[in-house]
Every structure is written in structure tokens, then in C-alpha cells.
């Protein structure tokens, strides 16, 4: 879909309008999708296609990263992301070291920087990292000599999730083209790194993006949307922000529910989960407003009965397990692309690092 680039998105975002077949990958790290040009995103999508081909084979393993050392460092609980990354690395024949901070020297007070230097001295080449503090992977990228892949940092970014979401949407849309397609993301936008990363990739894809949730969980999004709409900051597209779920879901091609993060719900952001479920929960009646062929997505883990009704979550429009399967292929593609990019180590890229890390 090289022709399907939103003109407004393209102007600032496309650093080089070279034919997408000739894209050269030069990113040493992947910390968020905001630094990716559209041709680079398409390169990831094409490489993911090939990885899907490997996953369909009798032997789901190729020697592309034979002997390369991938370390996963997760400061936050995770099953699917961590297992997905480790499966992806193993499918490429990499050696995987898995560190969970609960059983590491982090509990003795070791700092993030010391931990990363230690891992590097132990031979880590590619570091997959999840951290509760927004921006932590940017700090890691400054001290680590290899490649850093962000597996989710605080409220800030979850680039592999955004890319697997994009891949899954493209699989279900004619010609894989999101241009003008209505995508509604419903739920706790405020705390959602998934939503933030998706804003970059979906607007770059030219989608008609709607963010929907209670006003308390949309804080700051209006300002972001306005800043892009008015060109106050270099804009990559447009998106809508609303608390009217019927407006968000009506005629949507894609509806994505986000998890209500109960652990982050102190301070009266929500009156109650039951009220949230009644007003914003994705149920069959609301899905009836969307296009008949619309797909239902969820980044997991789900609170069934809160942000998504059980019958919608397992309904035939749900592609939630496809998202999980595509996640392995997308992560294989990114590990492969990053591992081959070491010649570009001089290229500076920290994107828009949030202040929290500094």
C-alpha cells in the first residue's frame, strides 16, 4: 500500500519518499514507533509476512540470529509480551537469557544503569526491556552498547504492540489499507502506552482514529489532538477524542478495547467498575453500531465483563488471539532488523524521550 499514505501524515513523517522496496533499516534501537517513517513501518510489515511464513512451516525455526544473545529484562509483570519475545528470539535461533527483577540483584538496590552494564558485561547483545517508569528504555539505550527493544515503559510506549495491532488490522482490511478506515480505541487512554504508540502508527497509516473513554481517563489527549490539528507541534495526522462511545463505535472498521488497569485506578478516576462497564464496556449492542465486518481487538490481559463483554471477546469478530500470534511474528521481524543494523551505531535516535527518565 505504498500509495496509501495520508498526505498530511506524509509531509512531516516521511523523511525519504524512496520506493518502499528500497528501504534501509538503520535504527539501532526500537523505543517507540514515533521515530519510524512510513516506509520503515512497511518494511516491518513485509518482514513480518515472511516471519508468518516461517511460523507456518513444519519446523518453525531459522538460524538467522544463531548465537546472538537476547536478554529480556522485565521490571513489570508480563506473560504474553515476555513469552512472545522469547519465543520470537528462539524461533530465530538466538540464545535467550530471561531476567525477572523479583529474583535479581535489583531487589538488593542495584540501579537500572548498573544492571544494564552488568548484563552487557555478561554478553547481552539485544536487550528487551519493560519498566514501570516512562522513558526508562531511553536511559538504557544511552548506556547499553547493543540494541534496546522497548517492551513497554510506564504510560509512554509499547511499540511492538502497536506494530502487531497494525499488522492485524491490515490482515483484515481490503488491500491492507487503513487509509480512511475508522479505528476506535476505547477505555483507559490515560494510562495506556498501547494507545500512545498506536496514535503514532495509526495516524501514519492514514486511519480515522477515535480515542474514547471517561473524561478522567482522556486527560491530555485533547491537547495532543489540538496541537496536531493546528500544527502547533509537527503533526503526523489527526485523531478525535470523545467520551461518547456510540459516536466512537458507529461505523467503525476496528474497535479496540483497552484494559482498565485496576492497579492504577486510585484517586477517584472511576466511580466504579460496574459503572464503567455499563457506560464504556464493549458489548454486543454497541458492536451492532460498528460496520458488520468490523473486528474487535484487545491488547490483553482482559477484564471480561468490565471493558469487554465475554461474548464479544470470544465472538467471531474478535481477533484477539490473532493479535497474540501476530505478536510473535512482529517481534521476530524487529529482532531480525535490529540485529542486522549494528553498522548504524553512530545514528543518534532517542525520539521524544519523556522527561521522567532524565
Amino acid at each position: 500500500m505504498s500509495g496509501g499514505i495520508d498526505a498530511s501524515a506524509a509531509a512531516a513523517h516521511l523523511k525519504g519518499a524512496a520506493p518502499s522496496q528500497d528501504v534501509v533499516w538503520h535504527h539501532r534501537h526500537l523505543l517507540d514507533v514515533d521515530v519510524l517513517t512510513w516506509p520503515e513501518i512497511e518494511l516491518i510489515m513485509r518482514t513480518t509476512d515472511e516471519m508468518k511464513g516461517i511460523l507456518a512451516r513444519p519446523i518453525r525455526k531459522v538460524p538467522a540470529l544463531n548465537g546472538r544473545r537476547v536478554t529480556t529484562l522485565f521490571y513489570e509483570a508480563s506473560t504474553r509480551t515476555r513469552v512472545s519475545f522469547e519465543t520470537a528470539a528462539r524461533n530465530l535461533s538466538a540464545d535467550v537469557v530471561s531476567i525477572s527483577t523479583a529474583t535479581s540483584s535489583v531487589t538488593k538496590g542495584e540501579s537500572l544503569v548498573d544492571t544494564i552494564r552488568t548484563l552487557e558485561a555478561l554478553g547481552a547483545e539485544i536487550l528487551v526491556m519493560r519498566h514501570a517508569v516512562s522513558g526508562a528504555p531511553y536511559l538504557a539505550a544511552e548506556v547499553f552498547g547493543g540494541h534496546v527493544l522497548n517492551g513497554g515503559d510506564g504510560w509512554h510506549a509499547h511499540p511492538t504492540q502497536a506494530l502487531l495491532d497494525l499488522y492485524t488490522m491490515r490482515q483484515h482490511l481490503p488491500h491492507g489499507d487503513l487509509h480512511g478506515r475508522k479505528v476506535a480505541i476505547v477505555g483507559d487512554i490515560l494510562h495506556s502506552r498501547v494507545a500512545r504508540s498506536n496514535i503514532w502508527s495509526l495516524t501514519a497509516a492514514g486511519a480515522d482514529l477515535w480515542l474514547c473513554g471517561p473524561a478522567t481517563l482522556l486527560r491530555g489527549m485533547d491537547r495532543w489532538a489540538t496541537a496536531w490539528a493546528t500544527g502547533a507541534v509537527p503533526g503526523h495526522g489527526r485523531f478525535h477524542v470523545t467520551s461518547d462511545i456510540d459516536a466512537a463505535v458507529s461505523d467503525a472498521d476496528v474497535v479496540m478495547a483497552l484494559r482498565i488497569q485496576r492497579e492504577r485506578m486510585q484517586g477517584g478516576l472511576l466511580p466504579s467498575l460496574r459503572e464503567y462497564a455499563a457506560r464504556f464496556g464493549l458489548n454486543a449492542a454497541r458492536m451492532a453500531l460498528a460496520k458488520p465486518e468490523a473486528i474487535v481487538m484487545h491488547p490483553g490481559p482482559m477484564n471480561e465483563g468490565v471493558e469487554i463483554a465475554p461474548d464479544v471477546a470470544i465472538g467471531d469478530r474478535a481477533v484477539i488471539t490473532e493479535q497474540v500470534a501476530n505478536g510473535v511474528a512482529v517481534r521476530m521481524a524487529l529482532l531480525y532488523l535490529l540485529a542486522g543494523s549494528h553498522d548504524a551505531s553512530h545514528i543518534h535516535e532517542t525520539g521524544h524521550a519523556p522527561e521522567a527518565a532524565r
Partner: protein
Amino acid sequence: MTDRQIMTGDEIRRAIVRISHEIVEKQAGTQGLALVGIQRRGVPLARRVADAIEEHEGVQLPVGALDITFYRDDLSLVAQQPIVKGTDLPFDLNGATVVLVDDVLYTGRTIRCAMDALIDFGRPRAIRLAVLIDRGHRELPIRADHVGKNVPTSREEIVMVHVEEIDGSDEVTIGRQLRADEPSAAGNE
């Protein structure tokens, strides 16, 4: 570039017809034969060999395409990742005699990768190798069963196979390599 032509379109056509006869002769027929082209220029060459066999034997052999990108042992040596071009093996490899087809045989590393890749898809009864050009300088104990033309070269030289389907014309040229990392050197091993 001071490229010198070493094969014309007609010579390529005749070499492919000869190779197609050799393949059938060696197999004593076409039973169990399958052709697999190595991306990129091996793929059109494999189709042409299949077309030639169909012409004189009246049998249409299965033709596949193999991308060996993920099997290379030099990911960290190439300046950028080769673009993956896709593997398509629309037949069962188990028990088949697979003839790998590539444009240039050089170090043999591509063929080693191709054999690794093939074996991940099944267990062929035999794997054979047909190449349009054998330019020497093997780094592995690999040889071709069917060769269009043997071309003695130095390592500084670069052999380019042009095929109609990709390059718009059929010819083989030889020239001096400008830089070791020149992109046009890709696929030349």
C-alpha cells in the same frame, strides 16, 4: 564499469536447454523431479528450465522459490539486511529429487544456506544443483551437477547475470568490482 559480455541471450537459452536435458538424463526421466530457484535470479531460471523440460518431455515439473535470507551466516557482515523476497514451495519435498537452480556459483555459501533451508521443509530424496555460471573460488566442499558455463575469475571481478524477467534483457557480463561492499555484488556468491 568496464563490463564485458561473456554470454549472450542466445547462449543463455542454449545452456538452459542443455541443462534441462542433463537433468532429465541424470534422473532417467522426470519422475519425482522438482525445481527450486534461489531468490532472486534463480527463480526465473528455474521456470525456464521447467519450460524447456515441458517442451521436450511433455511433463510439467513443480517449480518453487526459495529465499535464503534467514539462513545466511553473515547477517552481521552485510551492511544492511538483504530484503526478504519470499519462499514458495507449493509441493511436498519429502522423497522428491530437488534440483536447486541459481545464477552464479561462487563461494558455495548460498548453496549451503539453501540446503539448510530446504531440509527444514522436508526430506528430499536427493538435492542437486544447476547453475548458469560457475566462477570458482569455493569456500565449501560444494559443486554443481549442471553448469551453463565455467568462467575463471579473480575475486576482484564481479559476474552479473541479467534475466529478462527482472532486468529486461538476457546476458551475462563480467566487470571489475568498484568497492567490496558495492550493492550490486549481492547475490554473486
